[in-house]
């Protein structure tokens, strides 16, 4: 399968990127390891946004990315080749792609040991909690009117998206189960899209926030739940509460395929280009973005990849096999960029059609029309491409 861009990962940023590329008229394939698209939006509804809003967002994204080839159950495997002609293995498929956008996100893993705890049934990660809340089969009814506490800034300190998740989930727990909700963390994060308003909503619903003053809360398991000691005041007495369910933040690891992306640059985090030309990075793999941030970022990466491909387009040129040319002038007449003319070939010692490499855009019109099959399209060798890239990716 041959595409212009291969997007790795079908979460919100990958789908948003694929949709934007499709709108830009690009041929796109999306490789997704899971059996369905949506990433976190599907696997943990209610994590990135309130569940209902997340569902509509996902439907919109899936519809917009529809024209792309969505290869679910195809994890990205090995990669070879270079800009203009990457070769990718994905499950049982082989792809060639002009450029690659990595939108594979992060893997989240519950790590009770970070919180000084053993794994237990009444101990969940944020993403498990999202899954259970959305699952009509899950028997969360037993939590009705009980106490549920969220613990942040431990496994993943300073994570905006996990804090946003806790806010969305805390509100959902309060509304769906009428459970008492407590929040423990170091700093409360409100620097996200609409997050300040969600925080106010949570407070109005009676969610209690305990910000620790330099000393994280301590948890011990009891018969049916946990006992928590928290120190909301510096040097003050601890607050002691009994809870029925503890929801913990999770470790995050980038989901990167085993490719050599070249040496990391200091501020590479700030851009969409990976150190390796032709490979771009977007979404939560790139930065601590919320849902709105991921949607914007996917489209932004599409713009960067598209501009890159336009630079490459200029590198594909028609070439005439002079001895075969019948001098019919078809190509001269048809070339939309007036790149063909009849000229003298010294080595062949005859006149034939000749391409003006500066004017040719590699559209292939002449190739298809030539009755003598004398014209081919060739890509410039890698060295030429790299030289072009160094001069800003443009042709002269």
């Amino acid at each position, binding site marked *: 399968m041959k595409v212009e861009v291969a997007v790795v990962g079908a979460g919100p940023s990958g789908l948003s990127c694929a949709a934007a590329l499709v709108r830009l008229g690009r041929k796109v394939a999306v490789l997704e390891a899971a059996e369905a698209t949506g990433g976190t939006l599907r696997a943990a509804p209610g994590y990135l946004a309130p569940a209902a809003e997340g569902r509509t967002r996902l439907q919109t994204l899936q519809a917009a990315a529809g024209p792309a080839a969505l290869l679910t159950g195809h994890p990205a495997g090995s990669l070879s080749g270079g800009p203009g002609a990457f070769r990718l293995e994905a499950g049982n498929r082989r792809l060639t792609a002009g450029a690659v956008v990595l939108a594979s996100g992060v893997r989240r893993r519950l790590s009770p040991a970070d919180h000084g705890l053993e794994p237990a049934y009444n101990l969940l990660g944020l993403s498990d909690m999202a899954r259970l809340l959305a699952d009509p089969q899950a028997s969360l009814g037993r939590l009705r009117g009980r106490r549920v506490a969220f613990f942040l800034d431990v496994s993943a300190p300073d994570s905006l998206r996990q804090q946003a998740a806790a806010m969305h989930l805390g509100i959902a727990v309060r509304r769906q189960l009428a459970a008492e909700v407590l929040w423990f963390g170091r700093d409360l994060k*409100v620097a996200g899209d609409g997050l300040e308003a969600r925080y106010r909503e949570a407070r109005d619903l009676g969610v209690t926030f305990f910000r620790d003053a330099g000393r994280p809360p301590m948890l011990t398991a009891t018969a049916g739940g946990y006992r928590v000691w928290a120190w909301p005041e510096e040097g003050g007495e601890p607050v002691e509460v009994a809870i029925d369910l503890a929801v913990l933040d999770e470790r995050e690891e980038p989901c990167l395929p085993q490719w050599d992306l070249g040496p990391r640059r200091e501020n590479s985090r*700030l851009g*969409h280009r990976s150190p390796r030309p032709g490979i771009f990075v977007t979404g939560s793999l790139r930065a601590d973005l919320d849902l709105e941030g991921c*949607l914007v970022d996917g489209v*932004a990466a599409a713009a960067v990849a598209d501009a890159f491909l336009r630079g490459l387009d200029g590198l594909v040129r028609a070439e005439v096999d002079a001895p075969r040319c019948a001098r019919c002038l078809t190509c001269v007449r048809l070339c939309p960029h007036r790149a063909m003319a009849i000229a003298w070939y010294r080595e062949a010692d005859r006149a034939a059609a000749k391409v003006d490499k500066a004017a040719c855009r590699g559209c292939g019109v002449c190739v298809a029309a030539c009755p003598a099959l004398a014209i081919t399209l060739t890509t410039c060798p890698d060295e030429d491409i790299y030289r072009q890239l160094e001069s800003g990716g443009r042709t002269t």
Partner: protein
Amino acid sequence: MAARGVLVLGGGVAGMAAALSLAAMDFEVTLVEKAAVPGGRAVGYACKATDRCLHCGVCLASDLAEELAASPVVLRTGTRLEGLEGRPGDFRATVTGAELAVGALVVATGLAPAPAAGWPDLGYGRLDAVITASELEERCRRQGPPAARRVAFVQCVGSRNPAWGKGYCSEVCCPYALRLGLGLVAEAAAEVTVFFNDLQTAGKSMATAREQARKGLRLVQGVPSRAAGVAAGVELQFEDVRAGGVRREGFDLVVLSTGIWPGPDTAALARLLGINTGPTGFFAGHPGQSWRSSRPGIYLAGSCQKPRGIADSIAHGRAAAAQVAADLEEVRSA
């Protein structure tokens, strides 16, 4: 060919990123900037690296400005938009001294810091030793760090209060204050106190800054309600949320972290362009496609749509460019 032409309004990081992306996608771009030089607010900031890069994103602004100078983007500085007629794919825009035929318009007119004088209790304009964070930065850049020993930062001025119609967090002022504060500690051995509500230090690089801040700065939860002039500087009155009770403390310099408000031209431009603003006064974007305005053919980029830092504004500018390109290709082939 109107449909190949795009007008970008505002030459901050978002406008530059949008213009450069569009130019790289072979559009003919005119960038209209009302100031004498492009770059917007971000080119005025200084690098915040201490012994290492703190990912403030400021160098991205000068990188973009350099790239812009070398690009085919037509830059018109000292220029404003005066009128717009037509429809998507075929607009006629009147700018100072010229008329342009363009297919689309990207609005990237940016932000304004909250007006510090709006909180008279905090002493701005009344007390010389009360300044804003950007004034502090400006002063550091011109004359080096101030001689003040005891410095206080007051966070959330003009943000996070629905009573002012600004019920949002401005997102950038916490990292900004921490980085400036760390700079003062490193360069002027100042004792820096930061009065905050909640510290917004998301992301790995900010975690680094936060760790440094924990060691180097005094962080006090609770924001002062008033400032009074005293012989030895300024006395701040605040409720210490963590230790409890109202307290007073003297400082040589008080720095107000004013939040992000919509740029000064937002309301007038919204009328001129016939696009909507939202409840907080920023241009209103489509849900899920925040780079589209309420009017087809007009797009939004950067902090004119909601508070955004430099890196996010650049991404938003690129997203707007992708949408413009897609929509204009569609207009052309229709």
